């Protein structure tokens, strides 16, 4: 039995895969703790999972700072390549700087055998290296590690930001620690990731989407009465309300009072009027819902895309920022859907695109090919086995180190 500490940023898309992964590790008899800034994570953890909450002896000002970090990414609307600069300069670097001391403290107290740091939690990697704790990386947004062959300076720039912060935190050297050279779990398949070859410590383990606790209450009876085809519209958790309001106005115009049934993940307040064929809910049990749907409209968040593909569903992807353009590009490239430009599309484009992915079988067939490639990776069990191997491989070293200390 081993102890695993999972270090997560306060971003839903980066947390969800670790809940499935942690649940599998717990089932195998290991101890699992999550190091996070967010007290609300407690309710999402699988049974037996421990929340290792980062707390500073805080003045009110610092508390406010923590809260600000919890929704930092929703405050500004950014688009395209611009958003990468924003993500690093205004979100990831300050967030990692802020979390570093707390991560270090929690690692010391919990004393895990293996740390698992999100690929954007480089402060976690630095702390683990400093404390000689073997660490693995969980890549929950694989497009982020994909160097764009045409624009290599973008990736170079990202690495420079990470290395500069590492130095500030007391880790010398020019090597970015964001992806562990012992084990880096990539939550997709090679087929969906694309042709780029990755070095040996990178393992494709597929999206890990089982075992997630669902807190949402959902009116299944009303849903079952909605005629097919049914589609889900979800643009994730990270965009501001004004963006969403404009987007949903176009969704209502595209599908209001059509033959389609539409489930939308949104605050109902963002809709001026609710068309009769719509069901709008703040939270939905997405994994239970997907098997009963025919297509998905989303923003190209890695998790929603992978969950949809895992159910062989064709998609219309409307990327907004960050790595989403890239994820959308992959969906189109593998033939599993169509993409629209968030700022430019009009209601009729959305309607036509959805009708097209529903009508033409090749989209569904391509999605099913990706589904098969996901299944072949072995998913969460393979990921857990890799982590156990990392533990065993390091166990004698740790024992020797402990012995030597006495």
């Amino acid at each position: 039995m081993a102890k695993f500490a999972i270090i997560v940023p306060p971003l839903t898309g980066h947390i969800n895969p670790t809940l499935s992964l942690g649940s599998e590790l717990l089932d195998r008899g290991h101890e699992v703790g999550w190091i996070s800034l967010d007290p609300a994570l407690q309710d999402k953890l699988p049974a037996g999972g421990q929340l290792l909450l980062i707390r500073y002896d805080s003045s009110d000002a610092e508390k406010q700072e923590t809260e600000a970090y919890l929704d930092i990414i929703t405050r500004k609307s950014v688009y395209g390549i611009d958003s990468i600069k924003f993500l690093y300069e205004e979100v990831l670097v300050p967030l990692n700087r802020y979390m570093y001391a707390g991560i270090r403290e929690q690692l010391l107290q919990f004393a895990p055998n293996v740390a698992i740091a999100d690929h954007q939690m480089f402060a976690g990697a630095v702390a683990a290296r400093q404390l000689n704790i073997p660490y693995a990386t969980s890549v929950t947004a694989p497009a982020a590690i994909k160097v764009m062959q045409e624009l290599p300076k973008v990736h170079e720039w990202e690495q420079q930001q990470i290395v500069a912060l590492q130095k500030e935190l007391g880790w010398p050297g020019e090597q970015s620690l964001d992806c562990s050279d012992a084990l880096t779990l990539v939550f997709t398949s090679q087929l969906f990731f694309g042709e780029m070859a990755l070095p040996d410590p990178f393992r494709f383990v597929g999206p890990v989407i089982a075992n997630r606790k669902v807190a949402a209450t959902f009116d299944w009876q009303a849903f079952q009465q909605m005629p097919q085809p049914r589609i889900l519209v979800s643009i994730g958790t990270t965009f501001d309300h004004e963006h969403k309001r404009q987007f949903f106005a176009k969704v209502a115009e595209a599908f209001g009072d059509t033959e389609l049934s539409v489930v939308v993940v949104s605050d109902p307040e963002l809709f001026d009027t609710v068309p009769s064929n719509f069901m709008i809910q703040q939270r939905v049990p997405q994994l239970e819902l997907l098997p009963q749907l025919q297509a998905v409209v989303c923003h190209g968040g890695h998790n929603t895309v992978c969950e949809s593909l895992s159910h062989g569903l064709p998609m219309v992807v409307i990327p907004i920022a960050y790595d989403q353009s890239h994820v959308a590009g992959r969906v189109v490239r593998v033939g599993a859907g169509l993409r629209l430009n968030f700022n430019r599309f009009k209601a009729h484009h959305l309607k036509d695109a959805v009708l097209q992915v529903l009508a033409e079988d090749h989209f569904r067939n391509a999605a099913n090919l990706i589904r098969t490639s996901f299944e072949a990776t072995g998913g969460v069990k393979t990921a857990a086995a890799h982590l156990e191997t990392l533990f065993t491989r390091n166990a004698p070293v740790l024992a020797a180190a402990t012995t030597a200390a006495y």
Partner: protein
Amino acid sequence: MDTVTTGNQAAATAIFDLLKQFITEVIGEEFVEEMDIQPSSSFTRDLEMDSIEIVAFSEKVKAHFGEHIDFTGWLSGMDLDQLINLNLNDIINYISVCR
């Protein structure tokens, strides 16, 4: 970047028209009709093209000019700020200088 001199104005206009055609092919004719594409238009902020669209555009430039210019090399030398601010004039000037 060098500015385009009047003597090359016709050539510059021809390149501009060509680039505009490539943009149209990438983002779709009906959208371009509503856009005001100028030589000073930046790809990210003015034309709201995302990274995948910029790459698709650059592939068209590369396919057209082929070995005459090292467009990919030039583009891959750009850092983040240069990419964010990249406008049509930059490319027109680059192509003009190469010829």
